[in-house]
């Protein structure tokens, strides 16, 4: 198969793996998957990589032959545990190790779908093929490979947006959400507020964030908890005054987004919601306060599924890299 075929299929597999499993990736992981998806062809001097490697490729070909050792599960495990761990150690992102395994594995799987098959269980000389019938397998360089690339490209384009929000995020989005508008009447701590909506006051717990405790009776005040609580108070309980300085509204108007999938209340009877602010004053309510807390380093992320889990995880990683808020003030804090 051609280099482009392997790269497209490798990225397709990475996006699919990220969409259905619990890891998110950055650009480096995409590059790692692309590079590793062509690595096994180092044992074939006539391949693109073989041309680049020159004598190394010829030596590998003489020693093992094409589609043998470098196309085996053994090589996959060896490369993932060495190069994968190395990249993880350098970048601090476990997704790079997964990308190495997925990219390399995608090459083996793609070659298994060709007429020639691969010696997947090397040193055994058994040739693994998928599917078993010859007529259903891809002919390298033929029309069937073009069809294969086209299908892989379509799936890659389909999986890419899903991989960015995660499959759980997609499901929560498809389930939709109920929207309520209300006024913040009280800020309990960094991640808990009370909102007056439809004539009654409702305790609201912000979804996906975990600010350090400040008011829990059986727990000490958490590191950076007061700062998180103060920030929430400052933003959400901001008094609105008119031009003459008279208080028009005690708390801020917010939009609550309550997902239809999953529990709408937690164990303490608090409504679980995303809180949106009208930051520009144009009535659009687009600023997600939950994410804001994470970006400022005032809260950690929770580890259960919800609509914006991937986005929150990315925001947390950025805050952690910047050393924002509790990530520099409380270095011993756990990441989840």
């Amino acid at each position, binding site marked *: 198969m051609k280099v482009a075929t392997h790269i497209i299929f490798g990225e397709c597999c990475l996006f699919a793996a990220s969409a259905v499993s619990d890891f998110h990736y950055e650009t480096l992981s995409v590059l790692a998957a692309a590079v590793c998806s062509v690595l096994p062809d180092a044992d074939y001097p006539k391949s693109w990589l073989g041309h680049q490697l020159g004598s190394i490729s010829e030596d590998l070909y003489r020693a093992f032959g094409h589609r043998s050792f470098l196309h085996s599960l053994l090589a996959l495990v060896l490369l993932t545990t060495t190069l994968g761990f190395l990249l993880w150690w350098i970048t601090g992102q476990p997704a790079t190790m997964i990308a190495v395994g997925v990219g390399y594995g995608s090459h083996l799987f793609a070659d298994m779908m060709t007429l020639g098959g691969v010696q997947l269980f090397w040193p055994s000389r058994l040739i693994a*093929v998928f599917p078993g019938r010859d007529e259903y397998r891809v002919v390298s360089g033929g029309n069937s490979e073009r069809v294969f690339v086209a299908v892989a490209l379509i799936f890659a384009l389909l999986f890419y947006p899903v991989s960015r929000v995660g*499959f759980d995020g997609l499901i929560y989005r498809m389930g939709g959400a109920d929207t309520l508008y209300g006024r913040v009447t009280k800020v309990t701590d960094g991640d808990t507020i009370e909102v007056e909506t439809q004539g009654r006051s409702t305790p609201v717990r912000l979804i996906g964030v975990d600010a350090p405790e400040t008011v829990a009776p059986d727990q000490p005040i958490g590191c950076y908890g007061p700062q998180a609580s103060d920030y929430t108070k400052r933003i959400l309980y901001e008094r609105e005054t008119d031009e003459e300085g008279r208080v028009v509204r005690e708390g801020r108007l917010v939009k609550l987004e309550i997902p239809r999938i999953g529990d709408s209340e937690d164990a303490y009877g608090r409504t679980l919601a995303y809180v949106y602010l009208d930051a520009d004053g144009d009535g659009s309510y687009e600023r997600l306060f939950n994410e804001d807390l994470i970006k400022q380093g005032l809260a950690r992320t929770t580890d259960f599924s919800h609509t914006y889990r991937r986005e929150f995880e990315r925001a947390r990683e950025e805050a952690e890299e910047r050393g924002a808020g509790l990530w520099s003030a409380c270095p011993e804090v756990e990441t989840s």
Partner: protein
Amino acid sequence: MDFDTSKSNGRDRRPSGRGAGFPDFSTGSVSRPGRGFDTPRRHRQPRNGGERTGDFRIPAGARKAALVHLALAAWREGLLDPKELGEVRGRDVDEAGLQRALYRSSMGEIEHVLGPIVKGRKVVVEGHLAGTGRTAIERLGAEVEELRLEDEKRYIDMTPMIFVVAAVAMAVRYVSLGLDDQSLYILAGIAFALMYGLRPFFFKMQRPRDE
């Protein structure tokens, strides 16, 4: 077509084999070899000189193909009376006719006819006797020897892995119920539904066992 109009329906006639040119004026039964021009092919030399006398040499194939080739080999050796097969319907048949009749016959019937002939003998297969073919011949009491090439490629079909994935998807559905993970439940459900819906295609994609 040659029709046998005798009352005995041809049961008492000698096996004609491919030897339409061999005159057989015997009036004896199978158990009592005839006189005159009877040519007992049981004692003919094997045509393939490579094996010892009494060995059968057949091409590789499926279980039924192997049994058919073995029956044809036995018939060439003069050991098989075609009229023992119901599908022959008592007619005189040539090799092509016998082959057609054998393919129409059930494997059980062919095994029944072949059993006494191949018991204790050696069957040399030119290649790989895949699937249940080897078991079938060994069950008849024959010794099977496969002739394999040094550089012969041997394939392993990974298609059944799909069924493993389907089983895992089914298991994950129940695990996700226990974990109260709705998105995982939906994902596993979609995966299992896809696997189940495409099951006929996956079966079709598998490498034929007896190839």
